[in-house]
């Protein structure tokens, strides 16, 4: 090859300039592979946003309760359907979660105050262990219904990213407003409970 000769793309030596040359199978496979992979990478980037679940129908849930913490509920499991007609404060917590402890007292106090006004508190224990969970409930003298979220089924349905997270569900089974991430204060609790009063 001469050193400074201009490159002629239509080099007559190779047969590449023949029109209509068939593209071999493996090249098509590779090409498709590249596109598939590229699509995957892009999809992974455009992660679907976390289901906001704001002002939407609350996904149904079926919670098997801790035997000592049925909160007056008869039956071993509680489901949202059973609670139609009452306002539901759905709280996700865990015994290893420090911020959850900040709101535990407020939640229990609000439960005691509002339970005769048609408001139910339901606690869902996220990624936790029975002994530690029960120690936590005892420590804060919790009396509203609580149960472990087995295999994180409920947490997945509610797209939980961490704890504590709380949802306020009205008597018709619709989530009012967006989820609350982080510990709840007394004032905020009162305000949001007012929105779901039956």
């Amino acid at each position: 090859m001469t050193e400074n000769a201009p490159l002629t793309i239509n080099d007559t030596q190779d047969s590449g300039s023949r029109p209509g040359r068939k593209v071999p199978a493996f090249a098509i496979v590779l090409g498709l592979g590249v596109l598939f992979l590229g699509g995957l990478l892009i999809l992974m980037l455009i992660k679907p946003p976390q289901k906001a679940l704001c002002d939407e129908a609350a996904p149904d849930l079926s919670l098997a309760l801790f035997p000592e913490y049925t909160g007056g509920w008869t039956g071993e499991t509680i489901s949202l359907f059973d609670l139609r007609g009452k306002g539901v404060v759905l709280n996700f917590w865990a015994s290893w979660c420090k911020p959850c402890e900040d709101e535990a007292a407020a939640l229990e106090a609000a439960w005691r105050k509002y339970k005769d006004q048609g408001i139910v508190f339901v606690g869902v224990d996220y990624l936790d262990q029975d002994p530690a969970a029960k120690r936590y409930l005892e420590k804060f003298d919790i009396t509203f219904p609580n149960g472990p979220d087995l295999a994180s089924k409920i947490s997945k349905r509610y797209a939980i990213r961490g704890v504590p997270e709380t949802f306020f569900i009205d008597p018709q089974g619709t989530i009012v407003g967006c989820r609350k991430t982080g510990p709840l204060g007394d004032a905020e609790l009162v305000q949001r409970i007012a929105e779901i009063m039956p």
Partner: protein
Amino acid sequence: MTDLGYIAILLAFLLCIYGIAVSVLGATRGRSELVASGRNTVYVVGGLVTIAAALMWRALLTNEFNNEFVATHSERALPTIYKISALWGGQAGSLLFWTFLACIMAASATWFFRREQASLKPWVNAVLLLYIGFFISLLLFAENPFNRLWITGAGEIAAGVFQPAGATALVPADGQGLNPQLQNYWMMIHPVALYLGFVGMTVPFAFAVAALITGQLGNTWIKLIRRWALAPWAFLTIGILLGSQWAYLELGWGGYWAWDPVENASFLPWLTATAFVHSIMIQERRGMLKVWNMVLIALTWELTLIGTFLTRSGVVQSVHSFALSAVGPMFAAFIIVTSLAFLGLMVWRLPKLKSENTLDAVMSRETSFLTQNVIFLLIMAATFLGTIFPSISELVMGDKISLNAPYFMRVNGPIFVALLILMGIAPLLAWRRSGPETLRRNFLLPVIAGLLSIPLMFALGNRNFAGFVGIATLIFVFAGIVQEYVRGVRARMTATHEPLPAALFNLVRRNGRRYGGYIVHIGVLLIALGIIGNEFYQLEGEANLRAGESITVGDYTLTYTRLDAVDGPNFTEFTSPMQLSRGGRDVGVITPKKHIYFKNQEQPMSEVGLRPGLLEDVYVVLAGWEGGGQTASFKVFINPLMSWMWVGGIVMMLGVLVSAWPRRTAVTADATRRVPGGAQHV
């Protein structure tokens, strides 16, 4: 003054565009002055990026906390060496460092090849500048290390290069400090080695592209870039081994490789690069596997990009990953476009990539090289799928699954054993065809050695099945290599009547590629030995001890004596010297430590107490303590054969040096010289 760095990379970016245009024009129009200008652009861009990097380092060393990157990754009390390494301790800075290394690599390659292959060079320069230009674009448009901190009129903190209207410069009194996990000696070298490996792959890739475009698809480009493929491969190997050593000594879980997504990201290009450096041998000798070599080098280069994409874009969860960033889409676009473009080039040149010869027999070296290509690709594909599958599963099923070491070991383990066996078989096969006589001669001793090791291990007490398989394989491969050396030396002594040492020396000197390669394989065997020891024979123990109490694991007893605390520059160091005894005999003191950083109290770092040994490592972690040291809990591991992994790494590097050493019979000047008969000896 740091702002000049921003201007430097802006200029460099524009120059990259210029350089690409000029190189392409020069090549297609045959204008050598344009080509020369393109070549000079590589040097100028390199100089500008160096200035930018130097200014960033200056900002770090002078505690310029008005700079956003410095404020978020450094602090006054940070030791100087960590201020230097802080440049690659965060997303924006590490991208700048990557670009800087890419420029060094590009400039070196341009200068090294300055008298070679002028027809290929414009295209090589264009590809190099495209790569550098892309990374500078990441700095300019997504992660800018030259952002400064401002307080807006509304009292909010903003970051940017230019002063927003109504804002004043914010100069924090001190920075947030560097992640404690990065404050150790490996941070100085592991990322550097890896990055050199990653950027280095661009050089052989650029030559491959140039060869495709110019149609010069003989062995010229392969011979030219052999060392320029071996060097980044060596850097990648060192980088991965250093990372393993870091994990072993700092993370305190007794292991060295967690199949973490970012670890896998560095492993994937290593796999295809290893296949490549072997496969090009076939093209050189027999003109075969040309398409394979194109695919392998392109895959290697793209995988370096995909790997860093996975690390930096936040799509996979990892202890290593940077925070979510805007670089993701840019990487994705670059990867897809360059992959399709390369594929198009390859399809266009397919007729010229036809094999000059065919496979002659099953039992031939060519077949084993082809098989090794397939096996390496298989491991790469399985590892890649395992790495991204959790993200895919979350997308498709909404389900978070975990894919950890158990999966990878189960899938890759058997494949690696097959690969090791192949590594032993291939050198014992002849080119083209091995008759039954050859097979018997070459395989008899190694196979017998491998099989004999089984009853020997049984007699020594081994009952672990995987251990039998692993060690027998290692012995088989090792015996094969020794046999090669012995025969080569003997033949040389017969021919030249040299004494043994001289014969050995000259044998290796004259056949550096072959015998250096064998040394690298021995290194691989040693690493495999360390892996087998750690994986199948590790002993573990944990205990909560009061002063004077001991824990016994295997032959060793460790006694807790006391807990000391002393302040370092930016941390408190807790040490607990323990009395170590073996089989009742006192052996010395072993001291695990813990660092608790002032600015990062929730992230204490363990310094493992290690007593390395040829047969086993004694490894102890100070897990925690109560009552100011009244009781302390320790985790002890006995890791057999672990030190051989590090020895193996050194041996591999020695082998690379031998293999890549320039020889008196110049390869470059008469690259097309052919030995009569068509057979070229290695």
